[in-house]
C-alpha cells in the first residue's frame, strides 16, 4: 500500500464539490450517491496514484444509496474522505471498504434527522419569518438578505462541518486499528444500521394498497386488511422482493424497471397509491 497523504487543498476541493452538487442529481433510487462518488473521484485517484482497479473499487463503494442533510450532515462526507485516506494507507489489513459503508449507513439517518431539525426546523423558519415580514411590505432588499446571506451561512456551516468530519475521521484512526476493535465496531454499527433501516422502510416508502371494493353492506378496504396482518406490509414486501431479485443475480436496472412497472400499473389501476 502506498503512503499517500491528502493535503488541505484536496479536502477543500472535495468540500466545495459536495456543497455545490450534493443534490444535483437527487433521485429516488440512490439520492446522494452521485455527489459522494463524484467527490471521492479525485481523492481516490490521488490515493491510489491512478490505479484504475482500486479507483473503480472505491467509486463502486460510494455509488451505494446515500442520503443525509447536506449542511450539518457534511461531517459524514468529510469523515469518509479521512477514512478512505486511512484505508489507502492501511498496512495492518484491519481496515476494509465495508467498514466505511457501515459507518456511512449507520450515521446518515441520524445526521439527516439532526440536520433537518436544526436547519429546516429551526434556523430557516426563524430567519424566513423575519425576512418575509419585511418583503411583504415591499422591501426588496429583504429578499436579497435571504438569497445571499443565508446562502453564505449555508456554506459556512457546510465548510466547518466537513472539515470537522475530516479531522474526526483521521484522529480516531488509531483506535480503529486496535486489534478486534473493527469487529466490535462493525457489529455495533450493524446493530444501529439495521435497526434504523427497519424504521427507514416505514418512513421513506409511503406506498400503500388503496383498492377498496364496495359490498352491499360494507366497503372492503384491502389496504387496511393487509395492514391488520402486518402494518406497512406493502413497503416491506416490496423491499424484500427487490432484495430477493438482486440476490437472484438480477441487475439493479432490472429491479428498477420491475418496481417502476409495479408502481405505474398499480397506481393507474387504483390498487396502489
Amino acid at each position, binding site marked *: 500500500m502506498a503512503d499517500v497523504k491528502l493535503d488541505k487543498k484536496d479536502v477543500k476541493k472535495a468540500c466545495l464539490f459536495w456543497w455545490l452538487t450534493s443534490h444535483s442529481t437527487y433521485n429516488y433510487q440512490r439520492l446522494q450517491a452521485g455527489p459522494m462518488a463524484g467527490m471521492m473521484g479525485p481523492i481516490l485517484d490521488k490515493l491510489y496514484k491512478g490505479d484504475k482497479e482500486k479507483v473503480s473499487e472505491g467509486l463502486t463503494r460510494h455509488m451505494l444509496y446515500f442520503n443525509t442533510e447536506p449542511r450539518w450532515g457534511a461531517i459524514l462526507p468529510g469523515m469518509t474522505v479521512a477514512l478512505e485516506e486511512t484505508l489507502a494507507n492501511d498496512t495492518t489489513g484491519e481496515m476494509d471498504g465495508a467498514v466505511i459503508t457501515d459507518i456511512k*449507513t449507520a450515521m446518515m439517518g441520524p445526521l439527516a434527522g439532526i440536520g433537518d431539525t436544526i436547519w429546516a426546523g429551526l434556523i430557516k423558519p426563524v430567519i424566513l419569518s423575519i425576512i418575509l415580514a419585511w418583503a411583504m411590505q415591499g422591501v426588496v432588499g429583504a429578499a436579497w438578505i435571504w438569497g445571499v446571506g443565508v446562502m453564505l451561512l449555508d456554506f459556512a456551516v457546510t465548510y466547518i462541518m466537513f472539515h470537522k468530519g475530516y479531522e474526526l475521521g483521521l484522529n480516531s484512526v488509531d483506535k480503529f486499528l486496535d486489534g478486534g476493535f473493527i469487529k466490535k465496531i462493525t457489529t455495533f454499527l450493524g446493530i444501529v444500521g439495521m435497526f434504523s*433501516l427497519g424504521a427507514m422502510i416505514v418512513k421513506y416508502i409511503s*406506498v400503500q394498497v388503496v383498492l377498496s371494493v364496495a359490498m352491499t353492506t360494507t366497503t372492503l378496504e384491502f389496504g387496511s386488511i393487509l395492514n391488520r396482518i402486518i*402494518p406497512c406490509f406493502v413497503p416491506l414486501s416490496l423491499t424484500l422482493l427487490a432484495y430477493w431479485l438482486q440476490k437472484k443475480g438480477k441487475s439493479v436496472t432490472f429491479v428498477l424497471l420491475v418496481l417502476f412497472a409495479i408502481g405505474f400499473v398499480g397506481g393507474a389501476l387504483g390498487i396502489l397509491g
Partner: protein
Amino acid sequence: MVQALLMALLALLNGIQGPTQWYLFREPVMAGFWVGLIFGDPVQGTMIGATINVSYMGWISAGGANASDLYWAGLLGTFVAIKGGMNIEQSVAFAVPIGLLGNYVHVAYMTLASFWPQRMDKLAERGDYKGIRWLQVLGGPSLVVVLRALPVFLITLFGSEYIEILISSLPVWAMNGLGAVGKLLPALGMSMLFRFMYKKEVLPFFILGFAVAAYIGMTDLLFYAIVGIALAFVLIKVGFGEEKEEAEQ
C-alpha cells in the same frame, strides 16, 4: 417572446438543485422578485412571492418526498398573479394548485434522475471518475431544462390558462401511476442497503426496527439511533457477536 425566454431561464435556475439556486432562485420570495423584474415590477413581485412563501415556511424535503412543490408555487404563482392582475390573497390561493401540479414535475424529476446512478455505476466500473463528476454536474440540470424550463416557457408564451389545459390533458390514471411509482421507488435503495448490510446476527435488529416503526408509528430516525446505540453498547459489553469471530478463526 423575450419575457418567455427569461422566464424559462429563471425556471431552469429555480429548478436546479444546488445551494446557490436554492437561496437565490427557489425560495418563493426570491422567485417572486425575479418574476417581478421580468415583468417590470420587482417590488410587487417580491411582495407576492413573500406572501406565497409564508405557506411554505415549514417546507422540508426529507428523503425527496414533499407535499407541495415550492419551486413552481413561487415562480408561476407570482407570474399568474402579475399577468392575471390578481390581488395578493388570490394569488396565494392560486399558488396551491400550481404547487400540486409542480409536485408531479418533482416526482418525474426524481424518477427520471433515478436512471443516472445506473450510468454512474458503469462509469465507476471503469474507474472513470471524471465522467461521474460531469454527469453529477450536468445530469440534473439537463432534466430541469425539459421538465421545468420548457413548460414554463410554453406557459408564459401561451398564457396562464395553459396550466389548466396541462392538468386536464394528463389522464388521471397516468397521474396516479406516476404518484405510486414515486412512493414505491425508495424500496430499491432500501433493498440495496439491506443486501449490503445483511448479516445473520444483526437481522433481528432490522425486524425490531421495522416492528417498532410499523406498529408504534415512531419514524423519527434520531430515536432509532439513540436506542440502537444504547442497545449495541450493552450487547457488545456482554459479548454479542463474539462467537462469530471465533468461528471464523
